[in-house]
């Protein structure tokens, strides 16, 4: 605790309080949207127009500008969901529970997009829509984990208990994340090995890599935007009887 600057700790405590989170996210939202639109525009223009065609796949490879960032996000969001779930379990911070459950539908969507775009690419390139190899199967299990989290949360009426159960389910599922990432190295798979995250230099040409990284960043911003919107609604639902919500509503009605 001595190493963390005082201002950061104060920021953390303020953000953990629902009224501050609600007000702060309202202020930063327009900026997030502007950055997201700029990044997506630049990424898509670079990826679909500026980047050259691949020496083997021609233009078909351009689906990586959606497929790869979605697949990365599906893993990233799961980790956010599990870690905030654990924080909610251990420290009983309400906002962490809200962030955790609000992440689930967004993560499920990204997983679904990664599976569908991969399948569309697989048909012409591999010659099949789907194979039960380790990478594809573990990614499908990830989708089921997300759906399980959403379903479990919806099935329990008491949202305090629901948050705890969901956090435990999410934490058990964490074991799947390294399996997905390393599946292409541990086992023979039809899916190709890692391109960008290799330890030595990435095996993708720099003119194709830059739009890919832009798209990856833009998806991160999309996630933050969607997460904030979901978390705000979830917060209002949970805190509907608290003083700050009532004050805010009466102020708006005047």
């Amino acid at each position: 605790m001595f190493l963390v600057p005082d201002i950061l700790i104060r920021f953390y405590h303020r953000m953990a309080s629902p009224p501050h989170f609600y007000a702060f996210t309202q202020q930063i939202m327009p900026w997030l949207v502007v950055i997201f639109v700029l990044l997506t525009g630049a990424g898509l223009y670079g990826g679909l127009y500026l980047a050259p065609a691949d020496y083997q796949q021609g233009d078909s490879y351009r689906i990586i500008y959606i497929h790869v960032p979605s697949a990365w996000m599906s893993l990233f969001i799961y980790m956010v969901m599990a870690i905030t779930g654990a924080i909610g379990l251990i420290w009983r911070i309400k906002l962490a529970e809200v962030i955790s459950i609000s992440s689930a539908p967004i993560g499920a969507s990204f997983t679904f997009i990664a599976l569908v775009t991969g399948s569309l690419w697989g048909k012409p390139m591999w010659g099949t829509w789907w194979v039960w190899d380790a990478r594809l199967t573990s990614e499908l299990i990830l989708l089921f984990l997300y759906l399980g989290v959403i379903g479990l949360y919806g099935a329990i009426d008491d949202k305090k208990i629901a948050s705890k159960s969901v956090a435990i389910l999410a934490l058990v599922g964490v074991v799947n994340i390294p399996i997905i990432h390393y599946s292409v190295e541990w086992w023979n798979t039809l899916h190709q090995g890692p391109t960008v995250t290799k330890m030595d230099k990435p095996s993708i040409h720099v003119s194709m890599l830059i739009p890919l990284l832009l798209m990856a960043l833009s998806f991160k911003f999309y996630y933050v935007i969607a997460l904030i919107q979901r978390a705000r609604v979830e917060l209002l639902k949970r805190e509907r009887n608290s003083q700050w919500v009532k004050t805010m509503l009466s102020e708006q009605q005047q």
Partner: protein
Amino acid sequence: MKPARKQRLILISLMVIGVSIATGFALKSFNDNLMYFFSTSDVVAGKAPKDNLFRLGGMVIKGSVERPNDGLMVRFKLTDFSKEVTVEYTGILPDLFREGQGIVANGKLNAQGVFIAEEVLAKHDENYMPPEVKQSLKNQSEKGKGQ
């Protein structure tokens, strides 16, 4: 940290570690089933099933692709850079099928040790580059061989 929180933190860490170890053992015992295909060395060593369908993966050897009859039947050799297996396939090959490319074929071995494929899938590699770069890489490696 308060004792109650510390206890919960330890409990949750133990749970995650426990699940990881259990999954690790499960995956280790199912390791062979998780392999999507057999390599050509496995087949030559007799590890592949004799009468059942299985998948065979490897690199198509350059210059080995031939069409013995005028039909759709293709014959080629697969390698994992140690042992070779001959494959016969009748049907339409995927876009990425070419010599020097990795593929996965589903089928059976016949009595002569030739793999009769019912399905051929191309395994794409992880390299992405524009055609000009590929060409210059090729030129460089040819220059390197000449020296």
